[in-house]
């Protein structure tokens, strides 16, 4: 079985978010980039399939050489081969088109992506990819079992879960729950050394056209000082929530 894991490379969760050039560009200086947390859950599950079922695990990323350390880390964790489609990730549509073109000429049994990337929170690449390939898609995936040619994938819905069955190939958009935090792997020395020998292919882009463009950023307005209410006077809190905040 061949599994492709789509990796997006995002600012670490503790990053301060700032903008430059009159708020038109994200300030990436001093920002630590990491594997998108949702993708790391997916990669971990893929490596589990590799160990249990002998699957081959490839990773793919649409982006510039700046992402290479993130991709090397995926190899160190256990992926067998990396592909980078060599073009900046412009928007969800163009990334999905680049990925779809790649998969059309390099078929996989299962394509694992993250629920969303934590920078632009688009949650669009995996669904668009599935639609472009005309194969099933399960988002918010928290459970996955594969049986030969079919997969049963569980997705989180508002207030519950739904189990869906479909034939492979399939795209899933996964999140925590597919594996737990304690299952995540930290690359060890051996993994890091091995990663240097693993194949890393640079793929020429299709030059897909973006459908959207981010033109300006804004930071939320500074919050007014919190109003503290003494613990002995909760009536005051109820009064404030009722009359001032209008939420009761």
């Amino acid at each position, binding site marked *: 079985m061949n599994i492709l894991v789509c990796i997006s490379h995002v*600012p670490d*969760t503790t990053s301060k*978010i700032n*903008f430059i050039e009159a708020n038109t560009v994200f300030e990436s200086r001093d920002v630590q980039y990491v594997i998108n*947390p*949702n993708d790391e859950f997916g990669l971990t599950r893929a490596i589990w399939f590799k160990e249990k079922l002998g699957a081959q695990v490839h990773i793919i990323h649409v982006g510039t050489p700046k992402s290479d350390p993130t991709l090397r880390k995926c190899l160190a964790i256990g992926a067998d081969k990396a592909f980078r489609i060599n073009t900046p990730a412009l928007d*969800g*549509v163009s990334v*999905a088109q680049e990925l779809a073109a790649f998969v059309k000429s390099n078929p996989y049994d299962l394509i694992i992506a993250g629920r969303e990337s*934590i920078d*632009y*929170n688009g949650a*669009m690449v995996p*669904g*668009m990819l599935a*639609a*472009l390939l005309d194969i*099933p*898609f399960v*988002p*918010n995936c928290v459970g996955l079992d594969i049986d030969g040619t079919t997969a049963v994938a569980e997705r989180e*819905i*508002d*207030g*519950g*879960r*739904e*189990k*869906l*069955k*479909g*034939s492979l190939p399939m795209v899933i958009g996964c999140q*925590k729950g597919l594996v737990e935090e*304690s299952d995540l792997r930290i690359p060890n020395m051996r993994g890091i050394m091995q990663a240097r020998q693993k194949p890393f292919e640079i793929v020429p882009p299709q030059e897909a056209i*973006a*459908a*959207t*463009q*981010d*033109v300006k*950023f*804004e*930071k*939320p307005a500074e*919050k*007014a000082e*919190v*109003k*503290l*209410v003494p*613990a002995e006077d*909760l*009536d005051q*809190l*109820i009064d404030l*929530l*009722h009359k001032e*905040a209008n*939420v*009761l």
Partner: protein
Amino acid sequence: MSVLIIVESENKLLKRNAAEVASYGVAFAEKLNISCAALAFHATNANELGQYGVAKVIHVSNVSTHFDANAYANAIHGFASQNNVTHIIMGSSADAKFIAPLLAAKLNAGYAPNVIALPDELSPITVKRTAFTNKAFVHTQLLTACTVIGVGNNAFGVIENPVTCTVKEVDAENSDSNLEQVAIEKTTGKATIADADVVVSGGRGLKGPENWHLIEELAEVLDAATACSKPVSDMGWRSHDEHVGQTGKPVSTNLYIAIGISGAIQHLAGVNSSKVKVVINNDPDAPFFKAADYGVVGDAFEVVPKLTQKLKAFKALA
């Protein structure tokens, strides 16, 4: 050119967020000066959208009664392409976010999720939306002729604007489903994080799962959904689907009450877009107070039961 508003239903009735999505769609169409209609699947009360300015509803009932993303996306796509629909307005539920990218790919449309306001420019259409998990906003231009816009929960609000509403039954082209529903589990009768107006959330400060009745009782009085911080779900005190934050569910309710939660940046990122935040914490230096509107410095084990009692009395009078 026209606007199509996709509203969701459950158990044959419109979902709560239909009012907000409809309000946005109607205002959006007005701003562009083009016509609009709403499309609903299996909603017996679809005519109630008239309350929010929708004069025309397309009602589809010849598709699967349970939500089937691919079939629903095909049905919407078929209708949209035959009726010169150029802008599709949807919500931000798990189901809406399932359909939207499928639909955008089929329609060759640009898709902007988590939109919080009407377009600030019309050519090209430019919308403001949340990004970096609520740590910032971005203005996104949609460069395609056809667009899909996902409206954030509780971002735009509901606008009452009663008009006469006609519901037209339309048959969708039938399409094969590529997924079979094997099972569905749903907590019934309880507000969900996505749907609720109020969320009551507990953190590690509650010491253990045996104390969660404090959260549940407060939530019950407020008709609120319950939520928790990540360590609480990691330790298995609460189920994973209650975990909110940057790596969990986003919360954008009118009122978010955080109890025994320190306010780490990853937690705040997921709840920042809630309108009013109340923090109860025994440490006056807890970072959450900086992000809160109202705060009580005190022991949750004393404050919460008292607050629940007082709210009960308040609600009884109201």
